[in-house]
């Protein structure tokens, strides 16, 4: 098991005004799975390429177990890569694809055969050695790609959106499979994705990336329930923010006065946020209920999603089914339960 230390990495591409990564630091513990979540262009894929040695950083250092690997070429680093596409070599069958890494490292044919059979079993495709990559489904191809990466017993597994081209059901299965294998082997892993659900399901820790910087880094459940900043909250699906003056358990907003449970340390200007599934709509006025008008209403199966205008504020609400039905244009009250309002920086 290897711990990975990224220290003050900076990367700029020629002809681009902004750095893709700016002073980026991250420590990944041995056996840990850390996910980088961010929109395209946030620098997450570049970071993986720097770790693998496919790109060189302008400044900073990359250490495996405390030793710098920057001087090492990609084939000496022991950091394997799995892309969105499987990139199985079309001229080799499944067994030879998986055995490729061992073969170029000079392993014996006997050893390779045994190891290939072992990892094929691990990924749930035993006996598939003779199949051709073109005969495999998309999910099977990614399983084989994972096996090919794992068979060399790498120090670090780098996953660059490995599941994003797969159907939902296959994706969910593979998320669980990869996570289980990763835990079993205890292999240090960095996953890059733009799918919040995938990030939360798979990570030990989650790093939220924006414009080459970490916005927040913590366990998924912590980030989900109590994101530290407005930017982090937006990553986690929060869109309702209320700013006002706070005093004695109350927040005075332009839309009205709200009770808040967890009072921030000092009085003064403050911003509070609330998750869409904690907001409720009701007909009657009441405590912590702001008057608004229903703009839109979308039935999503397990819940109904409302968009409600409260003065100039757009409030997104998720009401679990069964939920009372409000038509577009209906006048409603938006209740923001005090216990679910939390302060953000």
């Amino acid at each position, binding site marked *: 098991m290897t711990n990975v230390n990224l220290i003050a990495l900076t990367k700029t591409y020629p002809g681009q005004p902004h750095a893709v990564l700016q002073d980026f630091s991250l420590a990944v513990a041995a056996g840990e799975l850390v996910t980088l979540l961010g929109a395209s262009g946030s620098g997450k894929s570049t970071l993986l390429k720097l770790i*693998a040695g496919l790109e060189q950083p302008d400044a900073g250092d990359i250490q495996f177990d405390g030793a710098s690997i920057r001087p090492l070429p990609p084939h*000496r680093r022991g950091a394997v890569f799995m892309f969105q596409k499987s990139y199985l070599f*079309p001229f080799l069958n499944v067994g030879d694809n998986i055995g*490729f890494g061992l073969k*170029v490292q000079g392993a014996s044919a006997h050893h390779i055969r045994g190891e290939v059979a072992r990892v094929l079993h691990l990924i749930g495709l035993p006996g598939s050695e003779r199949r051709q990559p073109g005969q495999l489904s998309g999910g099977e191809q990614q399983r084989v790609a994972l096996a090919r*990466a794992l068979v060399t017993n790498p120090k670090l597994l780098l996953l660059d959106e490995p599941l994003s081209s797969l159907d939902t059901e296959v994706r969910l299965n593979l998320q669980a499979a990869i996570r289980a294998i990763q835990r079993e082997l205890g292999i240090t892993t960095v996953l890059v994705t733009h799918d919040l659900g995938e990030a939360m399901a798979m990570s030990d820790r989650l790093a939220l990336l924006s414009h080459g910087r970490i916005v927040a880094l913590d366990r998924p459940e912590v980030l989900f329930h109590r994101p530290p900043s407005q930017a982090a909250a937006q990553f986690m699906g929060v869109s309702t923010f209320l700013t006002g003056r706070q005093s004695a358990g109350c927040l005075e907003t332009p839309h009205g006065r709200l009770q808040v449970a967890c009072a921030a340390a000092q009085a003064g200007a403050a911003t509070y946020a609330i998750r869409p599934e904690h907001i409720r709509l009701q007909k009657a006025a009441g405590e912590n209920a702001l008057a608004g008008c229903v703009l839109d209403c979308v039935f999503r199966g397990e819940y109904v999603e409302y968009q409600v205008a409260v003065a100039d504020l757009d409030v997104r609400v998720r009401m679990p089914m069964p939920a009372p039905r409000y038509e577009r244009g209906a006048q409603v009250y938006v209740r923001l339960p005090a216990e679910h309002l939390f302060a953000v920086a």
Partner: protein
Amino acid sequence: MTRLSQIGRWALYLLLAAPLALFAVYAFSTRWFFPQLLPAEWTSATLARVLGDGRVISALRDSVAMAGGVSLLAMVIGYPAARVLGLRQFRGRNAAWLVLFLPTVVPPLAVGMGLNILFLQLGLAGTLAGVMLAHLVPALPYVVFTLAGAFARYDENYEFQALVLGASPARTFWSVSLRLLAPSLVVAGLFAFLISWSQYLLTLLIGSGRIITLPVLLFSAAAGGNPATTAALALIFLAPPLVIIAATARQLNQRPGDIREQL
């Protein structure tokens, strides 16, 4: 397939095969006088005589060696050029294309005369190496064009994948890059071979009459006016390219999309 296109197909075959059939008839004929439709007597003596000629055998050997050498050299030079042109965007890319393609539009005589003066100064005129370098001028554009097309569809992530799995850059080149590009490499090499194989003018100009390839022999035989000898030589001239094309037919038939990942 419709009846009309069937007829068209066979008409095309006939059109392409007719001159070759005529060569064959000429090569094996003896005493063929007007107005006979076919020769009165057949013989393989002409072909045997031509094949027994030491000059023909040495010309055949030199031609194969030269075309093979030019083909290899054009690929060694063309591969990196095509890789950069096909995979990268850079300032001056169009200018590089233009320079590479100039030899295909400039008349070969002009190229040959210019090269001749230069090669005389360099001491390359009249040497095998000089003629091979001269053949590269028309061969290289076709190699670069074919390979650049392949690289435009090429995905470098296959190479990255091999590298991170522990393959050295050299191993990656031999085991992955060349394997993925094999169909296009075969086509490019075939182009270069055929272009060099059929060169007459450049061989004559740069070779200063000392480098005798099959086309040179063929032209002098044609000028000599013995149709049977000319036809026999032409058949010998045709054989190696036909063998090579037959051997590589599978590669030539590959669809261009095959280089991508097969999903």
